[in-house]
């Protein structure tokens, strides 16, 4: 570049009349053009020519003059060309209708007139807008330099503002004489648009485009010429009026709906209105308003009277839930979600409904009779009375089991119902789900026997019917079980029942181990390790015992001691802590207020026991085995000789049966081996010889002497009950169609406890709880050394809440107790009573 002769070229001005670049000639050109533009004759104009004219004026530093000239030209144009036709549109009729809400005019008439007015405004606006755009284009250089430097509103904004000042804010001189208040054209415009919108809401068809054009116009005009974004006339004037009018409209509409008293219709109506308003904002008004107007609808149509609608008889929330009106509920959910994030109204109603329905289940249990008129589902009713009232009672136990199952089924059905609601209507809303869950938990725990019933239900499901069922069915049962357990608050009580029931199932091999294990595994996942520790111990015992039995059998075989009276032994070695005390024989013992009594086994069995014991101790010295006869069973081979005098029929020949009886049954039957034909034994005699507890003996003898299928003993007198005064003899005329007979084991059937038993259980449970609370207190104090009473209580509750809801009174008592035993001492921290741990 340096090589060039780079003398800067001055601007070579075109050779033309110097005057041509003076202000006046340039302005003359422009003024002519403005007129042409307004008259839509722009196509013959040269943009360049006009642009250059304005450009030169600005270079001559005459920008301000140009600016003012254009402005006054436009003002003049408005006065002479624009305003007159608009004034003509504003007839007094229109004013009456628009501003005085003249009811005399029909909707059709109002619409016609309003639309004609809007069309006039629209035409004027569009013409003005187009012209102003073109003028702004040719004055572009002015805009770019002068207006910016002088901090003036752009010429475009200034001329658009003229429309506002000369049209919208024009009061039309004396046109408002007959009104008591002054008005401007803008008022009429607003009134007409709002009237049209209300007509559309009422179902009329209006010219949406026309309304849209009017509102777009208002969006393009600002309060002031510097055009701040939030000062559009649409926002400052029209929108507030629109919202106020809408509020009024919907308030009236809502009251009308309330009078119709149909919540379902209300829901659908509100939904439709919301959609309409959204749609209106998109097509007719402005999206700027969408949120605000839907808020108005939310408030006026939904929130204002929501509780009234929800409480309506027959169509309200109660009926929606009860009748599974999913669509209604679904709409309701959406509407409520709009107005209230926490959905408290819906939540509260759902909770009340769950509680009510849950309590209904309990109530219906009380009212239902399970084949007996007074099924003792209710603890208050004496079970004994029920027994006697019915000649052919399904045993009380069975009735109660049925009640438990019914209860569980009902609860599960209720749960299903609300689950369905949650998925189909409430979009699995977490707030609602947890509220419903809490209500379930509440009413289940208000029912005092829920723990027992749940355990019974599981027991029943596992004992019956799982065999041969598909994995899916099993899965359903397992899931139900876990769902229910999850609701239970007093898990220790449930644990106790479940332990008892599980023990019976395991010992009598009533269920399938893999299903049991699966269930326990799920409980573990749900409730934690400590909850299932005992159950797992039980399974372990069962497995070890199986091995043990087999090893012992091998051991005996290897001894070569071929006993003619060989007795096969299958043994279960149960760890004391894992198994419920009832099973271990201690429960019964304490109940009868006696020490542990061992029954007297027959010598043949005794030998076997000794042999096994010595075998057992070979590997495990120092252990003690207690034989629990109440929990065992035996297969006894019985030979029934030919009954003399019977030549035909089954009695005519010798019969061999294999009877499965309880261990006690075996002991009892063994006694009859040593009796001569025709001899009999009294109840007392039997008890004396066997030392079996009375209750167990009654059960044992009942199973052997009452049911026809296993009546190997003949009872004297023949009755349905075993009394301590009865006598028993070998039933020589026993016959059965099958070789293998199972004597029903009366005490192995699960049943609901009667009230005494239940009190027992609760008492025991409370004792256990006491220990748990003690342990928790000591654990906490050991760690913290000193703690105030309140802190200690809350820590204890925190620790235990996973197992049961500790009673504050109990905690207090346990603290007292520990104070007495000098684990703790009383101190004060500040003013608060506190404790210190004594090591």
């Amino acid at each position, binding site marked *: 570049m340096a090589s060039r002769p780079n003398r800067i070229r001055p601007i070579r001005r075109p050779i033309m009349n110097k005057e041509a670049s003076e202000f006046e000639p340039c302005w003359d050109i422009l003024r002519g053009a403005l007129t042409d533009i307004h008259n839509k004759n722009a196509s013959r104009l040269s943009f360049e020519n006009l642009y250059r004219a304005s450009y030169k004026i*600005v270079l001559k530093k005459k920008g301000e003059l140009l600016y003012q000239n254009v402005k006054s030209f436009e003002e003049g144009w408005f006065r002479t060309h624009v305003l007159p036709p608009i004034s003509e549109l504003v007839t007094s009729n229109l004013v009456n209708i628009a501003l005085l809400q003249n009811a005399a005019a029909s909707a059709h008439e109002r619409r016609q007139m309003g639309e004609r007015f809007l069309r006039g405004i629209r035409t004027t606006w569009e013409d003005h807008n187009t012209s102003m755009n073109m003028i702004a284009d040719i004055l572009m250089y002015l805009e770019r330099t002068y207006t910016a430097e002088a*901090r003036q509103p752009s010429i475009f904004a200034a001329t658009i503002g003229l429309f506002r000042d000369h049209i919208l804010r024009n009061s039309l001189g004396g046109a408002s004489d007959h009104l008591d208040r002054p008005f401007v054209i803008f008022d009429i415009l607003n009134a007409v648009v709002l009237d049209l919108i209300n007509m559309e809401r009422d179902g009329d068809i209006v010219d949406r485009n026309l309304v849209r054009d009017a509102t777009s116009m208002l969006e393009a005009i600002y309060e002031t010429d510097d*055009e701040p974004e939030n000062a559009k006339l649409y926002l400052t004037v029209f929108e507030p009026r629109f919202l106020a009018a809408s509020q009024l409209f919907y308030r009236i509409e809502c009251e009308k709906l309330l009078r119709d008293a149909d919540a379902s219709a209300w829901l659908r109506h509100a939904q439709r209105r919301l959609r309409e308003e959204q749609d209106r904002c998109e097509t007719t008004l402005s999206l700027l308003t969408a949120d605000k107007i839907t808020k108005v609808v939310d408030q006026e149509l939904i929130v204002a009277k929501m509780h009234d609608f929800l409480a309506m008889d027959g169509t309200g929330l109660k009926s929606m839930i009860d009748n599974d009106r999913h669509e209604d509920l679904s709409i309701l959910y959406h509407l409520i979600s709009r107005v209230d994030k926490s959905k408290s109204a819906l939540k509260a109603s759902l909770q009340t409904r769950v509680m009510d329905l849950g309590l209904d289940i309990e109530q219906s249990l009380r009212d239902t009779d399970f084949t007996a008129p007074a099924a003792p589902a209710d603890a208050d009713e004496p079970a004994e009375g029920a027994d006697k009232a019915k000649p052919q009672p399904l045993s009380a136990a069975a009735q109660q089991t049925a009640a438990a199952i019914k209860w569980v089924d009902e609860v599960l059905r209720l749960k299903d119902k609300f689950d369905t609601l949650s998925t189909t209507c409430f979009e699995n809303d977490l707030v609602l789900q947890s509220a419903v869950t809490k209500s379930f938990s509440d009413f289940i725990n208000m029912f005092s026997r829920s723990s027992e019933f749940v355990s019974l239900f599981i027991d029943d499901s596992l004992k019956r019917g799982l065999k041969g069922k598909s994995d899916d069915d099993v899965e359903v049962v397992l899931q139900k079980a876990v769902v229910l357990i999850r609701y239970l608050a007093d898990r220790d009580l449930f644990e106790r029942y479940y332990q008892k029931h599980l023990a019976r199932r395991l010992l009598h091999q009533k269920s399938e181990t893999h299903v049991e294990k699966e269930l326990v595994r799920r409980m573990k996942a749900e409730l934690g390790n400590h909850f299932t520790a005992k159950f797992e111990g039980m399974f372990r015992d069962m497995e070890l015992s199986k091995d043990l039995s087999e090893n012992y059998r091998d051991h005996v075989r290897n001894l070569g001691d071929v006993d003619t009276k060989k007795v096969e032994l299958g043994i279960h070695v149960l760890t004391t802590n894992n198994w419920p005390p009832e099973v271990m024989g201690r429960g019964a013992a304490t109940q009868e207020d006696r020490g542990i009594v061992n029954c007297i086994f027959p010598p043949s069995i005794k030998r076997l026991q000794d042999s096994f014991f010595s075998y057992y101790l070979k590997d495990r010295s120092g252990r003690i085995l207690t034989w629990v006869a109440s929990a065992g069973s035996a297969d006894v081979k019985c030979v029934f000789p030919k009954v003399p005098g019977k030549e035909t029929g089954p009695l005519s020949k010798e019969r061999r049966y294999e009877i499965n009886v309880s261990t006690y049954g075996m002991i009892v039957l063994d006694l009859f081996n040593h009796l001569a034909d025709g001899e009999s034994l009294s109840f007392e005699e039997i008890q004396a010889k066997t030392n079996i507890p009375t209750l167990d003996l009654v059960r044992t003898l009942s199973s052997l002497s009452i049911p026809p299928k296993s009546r190997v003993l003949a009872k004297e007198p023949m009755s349905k009950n075993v009394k301590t005064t009865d006598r028993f003899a070998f039933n020589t005329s026993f016959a059965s169609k099958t070789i293998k007979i199972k004597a029903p084991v009366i005490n192995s059937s699960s049943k609901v406890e009667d009230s005494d038993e239940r009190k027992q259980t609760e008492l025991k449970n409370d004792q256990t709880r006491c220990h748990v609370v003690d342990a928790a207190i000591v654990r906490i104090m050991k760690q913290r050394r000193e703690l105030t009473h309140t802190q200690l209580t809350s820590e204890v509750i925190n620790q235990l809440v996973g197992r049961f809801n500790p009673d504050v009174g109990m905690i207090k008592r346990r603290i007292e107790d520990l104070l007495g035993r000098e684990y703790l001492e009383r101190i004060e921290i500040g003013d608060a009573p506190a404790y210190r741990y004594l090591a």
Partner: protein
Amino acid sequence: MADEPTLPTLPARRSEPSFPTKRLKRSRVPDYSSTSSDPAFFSSDDDPALDNYQAHARRKKRYVGAWFDQQPASSDSALGDDDTPISYPAPRRNQVPDHPQKREFKRQLDSGVWMDTDACPTDMDDMIDLEPRSPRFRLPQPAMPSPLPAPSRKPNSLWDFNVQEVIRNCVDNGLERVDLTGLEVERVPEDRFELLSNIAPIPNVAKDVAFEQRDPRIQLFLSNNRLSRLPPPLINVEHLTVLSLRANRLVELPPAICKMKNLEALNVAQNKLRMFPGGLLDLLGPRGKLRTFNFAPNPFVMPRRSGASSFGADEYERLTFGPQPPVDAGCSALTTKLQFRSGVEFTDLSRTARTKVCFPSAAFNTTGRTAIGLEPFTELAAPAKLPTGEPFSLPNAGGRGRRGPKSLFEAAMRACVASGKAYFVLQMLEEDHMHYPNYVAPTLRQADDIHRDGGLWCAVCGRDTLVPLTRWFEFRQIGTREAAASPESGEEGKFVAMGGEQGEGMAVPFLRSGCSWDCVPVKVEPEEEEGGEECEEEEDEKEEAGEEVVAEE
């Protein structure tokens, strides 16, 4: 000994006999001049390397070190001896010197005490903007040179002569320390300083010593003069490592200071600086070598609200300026920590601000301290519309890297300025102003200034520009970063603000410029959940951010 650091002693050690006083120094100068073979003018043979061939006859050869503190060179000094200038270690702060001769005073580069004992009798002198002392050389005040002075090599005044003398002496003798302190320099013909680039250390050519060429480490002391601007040629003195401009009349530093990559110590205390150019941040950032920086006192503009929230500062830096190279935690180089940002001023060609935010020019002369309204990092006020009526929308985060070519206007302006003919064009414009838009001349003048000051780079996209259109202030603390607790964690070490004389952690204003309305700070997304109180506070700030700058006092 030889590697006497560039730094003066602290006042407390001022009387230490091993440090020569000024008087001693002065007496040495003629010595050198007399041994120099050069006449008053530089010639091509002033290359110090040439002198080495007659070295045995020359005194200086037997000395190493700055002229004021020479030591006889030890014979093996070039090999492995720490004390030779060759292996001169960069001064490191907070480190005990590993050889006894090295002084540990590094901060007050140019405290004035040593250079100028009689002028600065107290320790406090840096605190006080002293009136210049009576000049040592009584000089006729030269008329201000024209904006485009004709290059001249002739000294046009006595003080100019002195300047030339000193510089030439340094160039002749390979002295890296150039002392122009207190010469009443007001406006030295700028090309005088171009000569500084010629300084090269004289390599040790003693027997048995390996020849080693090293970059010079030029130290320039211009304190106690009357400079009102940094002489532009200094920008191009590549090996300038120490620059003292203490106690001058600087009102601004050129943005092109970012070119002085080798600067390790800079003293601009006691000037009339209102702000620093954004370009200085390049020297203070991870890439810069600046270790010592004296900047107070100066009448800096202040943030209007010292309690404003600096929430989002890091995010803002990352989004606006792109990923920054990690700061070497624990390294001794200085770094900065962003505190606040002002609103952004959007201007058009006529320098008319299109937003409410409007800054005073750098040289505005109000007497009091000026406060600048702040804008939270979560806000960004933008101009509503472009002059063409098209709405303006701010670029999104990541809008960095401006796309598209420069405007024809700027291209023409650049051609004009680059040709060096801007002055004539301006004259033409003035003669015929009725035919030109009135903003052309001022814009061209500004462009010319920018060009002569070494250029201006857009803070956001990094392009060079002559027509900056956006400006905003960033208030930053200057300090160092401590070593991070665990280097692997990627966390930055704790920032330790420099305790300037004006107190801990003073936030210093840096003026940022953008080359287009696109090149603006990025708005940081506000945190989702903020406490109600904070929200309220933000609104307060919003109101204030819109206000114009008002001078306090």
